[in-house]
């Protein structure tokens, strides 16, 4: 391993430690456990009483796969938001905190490129976000294995790698916003406003006025995780990959959008971080 790679590996490792020992990490972990606990309770309680929540459903005609899909939908609905909150927690303050907490005075004087520093912090943030999301996924998998004798639908596994791409793009997006500000609060608020307010408002306007879904928005692209999870139906625990009926072009388009967000966001964050000055 050359000197640059060794420095990169060292800083990734120390950033990861600083992340997983932080209050933000434990808070997110508790949230993940709480939410998955509630979902588990909900799944156990209503798995045989679907009519309580869906009165029009004729229980006798419901297949196990349909039941699983109904609960899968509810779990997936939360799953897609979890990486967003984690990324906001770990990514939004990634650069602004170096300025606000004055740690930049230490790290900028070290003989390591700022690009290496930023990329290593990014990888560390992605890793902790994946851990938080995995906790939820493992509990979901355990619950489904216990509740439904016919185990998980294949889409569960196929959607995970899309989820990982989404985590990379969402974290990159929060890093970009963080690079603009020198105060953590502004960075947190801006990410929330852009992602939950501006993106949603734009999507609603676009759909109502122009009858078109803005596929190029990150949250729209991220919905592919749910689609693949719920639509791809394979044999239980069969890892062979099928794109139907989620749609090959839909999946590739969403992946492309998420990759473009990742590249552009990180490029902008790197350019700003490289020029960042601590007054």
């Amino acid at each position: 391993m050359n000197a640059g790679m060794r420095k990169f590996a060292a800083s990734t490792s120390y950033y990861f430690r600083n992340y997983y020992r932080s209050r933000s990490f434990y808070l997110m972990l508790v949230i993940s456990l709480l939410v998955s606990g509630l979902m588990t309770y909900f799944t156990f309680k209503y798995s045989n009483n679907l009519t309580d929540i869906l009165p029009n459903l004729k229980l006798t005609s419901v297949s196990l796969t349909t039941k699983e899909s109904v609960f899968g939908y509810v779990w997936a609905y939360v799953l897609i938001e979890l990486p967003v909150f984690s990324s906001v927690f770990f990514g939004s303050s990634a650069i602004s905190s170096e300025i606000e907490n004055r740690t930049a005075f230490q790290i900028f004087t070290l003989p390591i490129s700022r690009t290496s520093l930023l990329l290593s912090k990014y990888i560390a943030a992605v890793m902790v976000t994946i851990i938080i999301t995995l906790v939820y996924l493992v509990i979901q998998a355990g619950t489904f294995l216990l509740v439904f004798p016919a185990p998980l639908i294949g889409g569960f596994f196929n959607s995970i790698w899309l989820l990982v791409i989404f985590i990379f793009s969402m974290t990159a997006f929060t890093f970009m916003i963080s690079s603009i500000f020198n105060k953590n609060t502004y960075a947190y608020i801006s990410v929330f406003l852009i992602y939950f307010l501006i993106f949603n408002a734009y999507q609603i306007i676009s759909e109502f006025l122009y009858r078109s879904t803005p596929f190029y928005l990150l949250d729209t692209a991220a919905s592919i995780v749910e689609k693949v999870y719920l639509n791809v139906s394979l044999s239980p625990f069969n890892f062979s990959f099928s794109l139907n009926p989620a749609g090959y072009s839909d999946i590739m388009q969403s992946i492309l959008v998420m990759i473009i967000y990742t590249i552009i966001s990180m490029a902008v964050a790197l350019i700003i971080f490289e020029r960042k000055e601590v007054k």
Partner: protein
Amino acid sequence: MPSIKLEGITKRFGQLKALDGISFDIDGPGCIGILGPNGAGKTTMLKILTNIVKPSKGIAKVNGISVSEYPEKALASVGALVEQPEFYPYLTAREILSFVVKIKMAKDEKDEIRRVSELTSITGYLDRKAGEFSRGMKQRLGIAVALVGDPDVLILDEPTFGLDPSGMKQVRDIIKEINAKREKIIILSTHLIYEAQEVCDRIIIVNRGNIGYDVHNGLSDHVKIELEAPVTGIDFPAELARKYRSDGNSIYIEKADGTRNSDLIEHCRKMGHEVRWVTPYNDIEAIYVSLTK
């Protein structure tokens, strides 16, 4: 031989000109004190030397390498403590030092951590998280971080800030000890004139973004003697002192040729005065006050 060169450094923050075409060279080892009032540009100068900010104009070089063009290479031979240091709060002091050892590619990680932690007296705190450290402990850890890898150039911005008197003395002793080996350039920015006079070979006073004064410190013929009791009835013969004046417990003396400090101490004792200490003196305080008025 370590070197530092600042050529026409100007730094603007919006409309404010923090530095206005500063130039100076440091060739070879020695301790250089940077004095100046708040907002004079001292810290900005150090930030440019450590790549925390980039100059608007001019070039800063460490060992002949431009800091803004090749920061990684230039900073490989620099250890720095700039402003009051803060660290990643969830890492222990040992992990922070280990991280810096790895980044600076220093050899023998354990030995290096032991060396710098013993020098700065933080050995007993190595396994505590930096977030739990007091201001003074953070300062010590910051100095330890700067010392990692035994760099050619040591940049210390108010290193005694937040330390108790014994801690301040300890830091000054560390600087003196390093400087005595005559291997490194030490840049010491401080508000304490006596600290610069005690530790540094050369003093630069920065004022309003310019260098107001640059002189070699500790002129051998100027000393200040501090007595245990107020000065009364003491005279110095012409063979010991060309000029002298007293003020409270202090006597300011311009020594005659060939006079040693020990001769002056001996003379004071003969006159019935116990000497607390003798220090080089060249009226930096008066110059500082007149420049920064």
